[in-house]
């Protein structure tokens, strides 16, 4: 259904985004949300809200029962998404719905291997491409195990965004077909929402990334404040803030659903955006 509604496909919205930002001397700012959290409709509104507030790239989590690499914040978001009927297929529907009015903002899925395996890599890739997905990050599928998925992605013009840790060996980061978009640099170990790395560590990690890739480097995991985001923006091509943004929104007192929640989000995104844009280019 979603596939047929989607009017067109951009081969490389992610590349286009980095080109555009680089030309403007700016760094990318990405955030993460779980599809269908708290509902399909609100999720859709939120994605558009992100773009309006200044987000360049959206990581869209497809709900999964067992997000083993995530901390409490994102575990809860997954549960809410599942409770609202969210799953991989509905997430593709969500992207298709988003694409009806936004053909430019890159969307990469983020999640776990099992829903992909159960849907089948080829079926997934075909449906995802038709829905307007640009790439995917799979938390528990290192490149060693990604052969079948990479082939399917490549066939449908999508990429897998590789996760990078400093301790990885050459063989685990070597470029291969189907890999692209950017390098997701994780400067800490441990699940999401955990402690932050120092800016020195992040610097080392980014430098390390640059040596093994020509892709743009974005840094995620543990970035919690606009100040930290600015510091990272000064050395990387982009910044990803997930748990911290959700926590900031949720920490504000009073009920927050729909428009109200979105306006809180916008305010915090705006603060990060300002900080990132003010950072000196590396």
């Amino acid at each position: 259904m979603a596939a047929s509604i989607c009017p067109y496909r951009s081969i490389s919205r992610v590349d286009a985004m980095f080109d555009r930002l680089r030309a403007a001397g700016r760094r990318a700012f990405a955030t993460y949300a779980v599809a269908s959290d708290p509902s399909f409709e609100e999720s859709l509104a939120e994605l558009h809200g992100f773009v309006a507030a200044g987000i360049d790239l959206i990581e869209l989590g497809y709900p999964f029962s067992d997000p083993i690499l995530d901390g409490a914040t994102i575990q809860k978001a997954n549960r809410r998404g599942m409770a609202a009927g969210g799953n991989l297929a509905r997430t593709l529907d969500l992207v298709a719905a988003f694409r009806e009015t936004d053909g430019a903002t890159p969307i990469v899925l983020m999640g776990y291997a099992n829903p992909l395996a159960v849907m089948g890599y080829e079926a997934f890739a075909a449906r995802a491409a038709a829905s307007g997905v640009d790439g995917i990050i799979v938390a528990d599928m290192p490149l060693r195990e990604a052969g079948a998925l990479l082939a399917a992605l490549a066939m449908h013009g999508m990429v897998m965004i590789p996760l990078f840790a400093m301790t990885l060996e050459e063989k685990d980061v070597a470029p291969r077909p189907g890999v692209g978009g950017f390098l997701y640099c994780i400067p800490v170990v441990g699940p999401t929402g955990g402690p932050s790395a120092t800016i020195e560590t992040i610097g080392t990690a980014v430098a390390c990334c640059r040596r093994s890739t020509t892709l743009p480097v974005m840094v995620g995991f543990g970035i919690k404040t606009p100040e930290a985001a600015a510091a990272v923006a000064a050395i990387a091509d982009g910044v990803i803030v997930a748990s911290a943004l959700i926590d900031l929104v949720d920490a504000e007192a009073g009920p927050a659903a729909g428009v109200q929640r979105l306006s809180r989000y916008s305010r915090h995104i705006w603060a990060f955006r300002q900080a990132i844009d003010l950072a000196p280019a590396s």
Partner: protein
Amino acid sequence: MALAQPLAPDRPGRYGRFGGQFVAPVLLPVLDRLEAAFEEAWIDRGFRMRLDGLLHDFVGRPTPLSEAVARLLPTAGARILLKRDDLTFNGGNYANSALGQCLLAGRMGLSCVVTDTGSGQNGIATAAVAAHLGMASIIYMGARDAARHPGAVKKMRAFGADLRIVQDADGTLHAATSAAVRHWMGSSDTTAYVAGAPIGAHPFPRIVGAFQAVIGSETRLQLIAAGLMPGAVVSAVGGGSSTVGIFSAFVTDPGIRLIAVEAGGSGEGQPHSARLASGRTGILHGAETFVLSDENGHILPAGSIASGLAYPGSPPELADLVAGGRVETVRIMDEQARDAVRRLASGEGILISLEAGHALAAAEALAQTLSPSQAVVVMVPAAGDKDLDIVWPES
């Protein structure tokens, strides 16, 4: 003896199409180091002697293979032989691999281990072994499991373990495993993850399988000594440590049927744990294997009266043996298992766990179809003390 030999699958870490290393990339170097350390240790005579010595002195191996006399069964049938790992140590057969893995961790310079536990057996074994070797231990246990097994909770704490109760999800082994792996991800430089079963990313299935293979080799020797060639070996599959351990010695004997018993739960429409027979191929906790998951890939809650069987994943090696038809599967319901435990206790004076009760119930049914000259071996991974309140709620 498939697992006692170095593994040589088509792809590294694969059993046929099952297995692999589906983990966060940050863990890959850790797994690679672990694999190298294990393969080196496994061929190191000193390491093996230390392991064997502790298996004997500390764990209490070898365990007997003892006959359940005919009184047990209403009608005649094949002889039933019990492999009595209930006679080891506190933790039943879990001690085999906890010991091996803790020794390995020590050899790798790590001073702390983290693990997960369902009915408490793996946690107790790991806590005790860690204490014995002077290491710290952190154990995750689901809140529901902890409530069902207060004695186990007390015992782990007695051994000095830092026990952490997990409120997440269904509060069973599955949640505990996720929590333990999360913990390990953040501390793999000081802390080893102790796999309770031959599940998870390679090299864990390989390592646990190798350390548990002692069950199978003992059983084989005992059968040879008794001049017996069994018609079948029957074992209940939770994480699969005892099943892979005992099957390993018989996989290459086509004349011996290997029967994996899965928990059928309380009844139609209730949660069960039969992922080998009716799970989907999926990816859970680091490996491609048979998984209880729905059509969207969400993991389904696993259910059983036996905490140790309620796990939605399965050992990749076993998945391969089932897929290839070498291992048959049977489903046993809660009540059948409970009955078997009760009958063995009052009829034989042997108190086995509910997990083992599943295997016994299946073996009894099978024995009825065989002649008295045949024998069926039943794996008893642990004693039933932990299940007293569940099996005999009335007394």
